[in-house]
């Protein structure tokens, strides 16, 4: 195994956990400690990435956070800062702005079967001089060979790395193995994985990815991310170091990072509770957990009933308003019967 890239998404995915309320003061403290730990890649931004701040998904408490962090980003040359960009939420002008603020990795993401929506965005970001990765979200929703074709498209648009996201925490280690084999048989660029812990499998899936040729893994301190959370940085470092891999990252320092999260956000630390396991099993986007609780309560229906129905209609990320329509339909039906 070659030494993987540890791509830290805590300050992005974690914002799902605290309703997009990271402050610039917290972020700068986090970045400083991350630097001491030896991390080289940090993602910033709203939980759904650039342009995600909205009534539909959740407004960022501080929309100007990047502006406050700008000096910080530009003086920290050893760390590359990235951002998640979903066409449909962000537009080109938004990309230009963050590049001027010092973001150097643009991770252009689409639903796994819709890679052709990323073509113009990948080109645009590459023309801005960025390193551009192509991300396939909700990758449990299509077969591995189909996923590989979509990855190949992103490569042809100019992506320099592909990452497949288990956005629902729905994959198993053997599924991850198949996906890695299929994708790596068609692309010439490196591959990475992003996991969620709904089925308690973020760690097992990430290890499977590493032993099947992936060379980057997304990590979160204390697993702090959407829904049941993500792969915990400190766990993967501990395991790799114990297995004799020199990760280049200090275990003692990442424990301080995890402590930072624990002390600031004791109320929103991720848990693998029954609802998380259910959304994982039925394949729903991890960021939907809170919306499901809120909407099921509003319409007085059972959470699990809503989860199953949303799974049946193949809801993808970004469709928060569909949770409302489906709940409204279910409650109408119940009232009639």
């Amino acid at each position, binding site marked *: 195994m070659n030494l993987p890239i540890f791509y830290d998404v805590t300050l992005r995915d974690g914002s799902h956990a605290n309703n997009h309320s990271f402050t610039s003061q917290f972020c700068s403290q986090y970045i400083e400690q991350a630097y001491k730990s030896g991390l080289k890649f940090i993602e910033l931004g709203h939980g759904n990435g650039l342009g995600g701040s909205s*009534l*539909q998904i959740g407004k960022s408490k501080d929309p100007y956070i990047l502006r406050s962090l700008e000096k910080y980003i530009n003086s920290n040359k050893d760390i590359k800062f990235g951002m998640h960009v979903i066409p449909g939420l962000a*537009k080109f002008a938004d990309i230009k702005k963050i590049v001027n603020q010092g973001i150097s990795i643009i991770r252009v993401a689409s639903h796994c079967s819709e890679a052709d929506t990323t073509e113009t965005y990948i080109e645009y970001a590459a023309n801005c001089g960025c390193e551009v990765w192509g991300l396939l979200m909700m990758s449990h929703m299509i077969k591995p060979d189909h996923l590989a074709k979509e990855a190949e498209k992103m490569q042809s648009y100019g992506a320099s790395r592909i990452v497949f996201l288990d956005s629902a925490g729905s994959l198993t280690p053997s599924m991850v193995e198949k996906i890695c084999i299929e994708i790596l048989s068609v692309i010439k660029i490196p591959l990475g994985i992003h996991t969620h812990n709904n089925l308690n499998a973020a760690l097992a899936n990430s290890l499977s990815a590493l032993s099947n040729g992936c060379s980057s893994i997304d990590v979160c301190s204390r697993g702090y991310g959407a829904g049941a959370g993500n792969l915990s940085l400190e766990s993967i470092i501990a395991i790799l170091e114990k297995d004799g891999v020199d990760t280049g990252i200090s275990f003692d320092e990442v424990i301080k990072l995890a402590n930072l999260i624990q002390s600031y956000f004791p109320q929103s630390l991720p848990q693998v509770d029954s609802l998380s396991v259910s959304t994982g099993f039925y394949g729903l986007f991890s960021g939907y957990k809170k919306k499901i609780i809120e909407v099921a309560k509003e319409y007085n229906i059972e959470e699990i009933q809503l989860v199953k129905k949303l799974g049946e209609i193949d809801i993808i990320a970004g469709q928060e308003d569909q949770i409302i329509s489906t709940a*409204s339909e279910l409650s109408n039906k119940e009232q009639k019967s």
Partner: protein
Amino acid sequence: MTKKVAILGPGNIGCDLLCKCLKEEEIEVVMFAGRNYNSKGLRLASSLGVPITDRSIDAIIKLKNKPDIIVDATSAIYHKSHYEVAKKNKILIIDMTPANYGISCCPAINLTECIKEDNINMISCGGQSSIPICYAIKASNADLDYIEVVSTISSASAGLATRRNISNYINTTENAIMNLTGIKNVKVIINISPAIPPIRMKTSIFVETQQIINYQETIANIKLMSDKTREYVKGLKNIIILKSFGEKTLSQIEIIGSGDYFEEYAGNLEIINCAALKVIKNL
């Protein structure tokens, strides 16, 4: 009087519009133009007895049976040059691409103003479905200064040009909403869903609850503007007229297609094409 129309761009929008035009007695489609004879759209048109070409707008301007109107259903990057050619040849152009170049037209709001222009932009499917409602909400709540529009369309109905135009789509739709409603801050989101069976086009309009001062009047106004839009888009269906969830309030609609080219899920093709037909009939 019969209106002579040439349709440029034989993709999803172009084909659905062709089917709709052929049902109208007062419209004659003089040409359906693409750039490749193998395109599915050109074969469809030819089987329907419509003159076709693979030489794009160049063939249209050489027609003896000169059109009054060219409908540009290609991709945003080509629109400016198509407009210039049309202008030189004194042909009015209706733009279905989100090129943000001609006057933004939502028939329920500004039809009379638009038909005086030589380049009429039909904004987008999300724009056509949301603008009458945004307008209604603003009319009842003068201080409203933020609105958000989220549309979801089926993957099956989103052609390659649509997928390449997403950033243009957001820009054009946000600008049109601002200009046609006077709301200062607008955010537009678009989702493309691969669900099977395909999802019906849906648009949700969100505002901050505290900005809705006149709740009952807002409801009445939304109904009024929806009825006005239904005069030319029969498939518009209000699913939720107005409902508050804590700090946010939403209005939600679906557009049911008439099944001309795709099945009824393709409300996105339906609404922009019905809006364009409304313009054509009023020219």
